């Protein structure tokens, strides 16, 4: 959405129904999910979505500090999303910034609706997401990995949460934008959905779309999320085999 000039190789992002990385309009990037990758954590997951690579770990339920953040009737879900220094083209300064603060918040809000937080009053469930390589779609990958890590940690939940984006590029609505599509396209609409009743727990839009286009994008995203949830369940089942 940056309006940056396109280099030659990306002048046309869709040629005969094929995207620059060979995918179809409604095709996700290759998705890998691994569970239990961080031994010290109560639950953990590794997600690769194309070149985007993400680790997530869950610690808790445990005591919450500082005490003034404690909620009397439920657990707090603390989410810390961050990008490692070398995960992007130009080195990122370590430590939280405005972008990571916002994404931590929307990821938290994406996952809270499915967790039975009321079962652990006054406690803290900590979810840490480290982006080790960022190549479009880190917030949706964070939701996918975070949801699996919570399940792996045995946190009681009414279902999983999956997430993917769709966007408008060269007049078409495409599923799961890659980096050039994200950089040179018109809009990006990441949406997270619950596995149980497909309700929306994360939604952001960058760039112009009509209401009809948004509705069309949501249809694609529903399909994408169905597939992602099947992969999340598969990965979780694998742990117990």
């Amino acid at each position, binding site marked *: 959405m940056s309006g940056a000039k396109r280099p030659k190789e990306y002048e046309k992002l869709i040629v005969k129904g094929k995207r620059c990385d060979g995918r179809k309009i409604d095709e996700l990037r290759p998705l890998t999910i691994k569970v239990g990758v961080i031994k010290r954590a109560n639950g953990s997951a590794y997600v690769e979505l194309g070149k985007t690579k993400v680790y997530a770990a869950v610690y808790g339920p445990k005591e919450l500090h500082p005490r003034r953040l404690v909620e009397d009737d439920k657990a707090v879900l603390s989410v810390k999303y961050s990008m490692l220094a070398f995960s992007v083209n130009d080195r990122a300064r370590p430590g939280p910034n405005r972008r990571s603060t916002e994404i931590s918040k929307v990821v938290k809000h994406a996952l809270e609706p499915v967790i039975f937080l009321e079962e652990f009053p006054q406690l803290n469930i900590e979810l840490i997401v480290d982006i080790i390589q960022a190549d479009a779609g880190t917030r949706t990958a964070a939701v996918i990995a975070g949801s699996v890590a919570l399940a792996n940690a045995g946190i009681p939940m009414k279902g999983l949460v999956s997430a993917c984006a769709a966007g408008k590029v060269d007049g078409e609505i495409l599923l799961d934008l890659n980096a050039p599509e994200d950089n040179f396209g018109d809009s990006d609409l990441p949406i997270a959905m619950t596995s149980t009743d497909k309700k929306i727990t994360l939604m952001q839009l960058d760039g112009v779309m009509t209401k009809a286009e948004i509705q069309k994008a*949501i249809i694609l995203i529903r399909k994408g999320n169905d597939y992602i949830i099947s992969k999340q369940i598969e990965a979780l089942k694998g742990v117990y085999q």
Partner: protein
Amino acid sequence: MIETNKNYIRQNIAIKRLDGRTYKDFRKLSVETNLIEKAEGSALVTLGETKVLVGVKMDLGTPFPDSGDVGILMTNAERSPIASPEFESGPPNDDTIELARVVDRGIRESGCIDFHKLCIKEGEKVWMVFVDISILNNDGNLFDAAAAGAISALLTAKIPKLNDNGTVNRSEYDGALVVTDLPIMVTTALINGVMVVDPTADEEEVIEGRVHVTSIEAGICAMQKSGSCEFTEEQIMTAIDNSIAMGKELRKQLKKK
């Protein structure tokens, strides 16, 4: 607020709100511009009792390495403790950062400013447009008030003249900042199953979540779901419809000025 009041709001929200509005009513929004002469543009927005002051400053800066020919928009919000007993001193917290970023996205993605025109020398010198949002009184729905303030301040903004030696001369102007569209944010909140436009501070204590939708003439240019609840697709569409409808009205109102 005590628990009985919260319950009262929740139970009556579909019929009547504490201030008499229906769930579709936006409070009266008024805008006073140019009251800060030292700013390149400014607007004081009053939305019910919510008051937000926005100032625009223009300064010289170096463009980002990957986009050397475009100016830079920096939107910043401060929750001064002046505005509410709940606000504390200190650097912006996650709510304030979200506010600034959602307002920023509405302006940026609307395409209302052609940032290529703010390039002075490619790769070296561009105009930075600082939009500083300061909350003076919080009676709810800061997002919509801040967004209206930001676009109103930008509409009044002038570009300072450059001296021959390349420094900024703030006593003369080189014309207005060109703003070609009017992005309007409209927030719909979920209370007890009802989608309610423009929540007050009292209502914000019982809302389950919000959908912030920014529209321009051509469609929707930014959205943000906020709060730890779920929304059905229908509820999201209600929020979009509210934004399109209310956006039309407010664009008319703001254009008149």
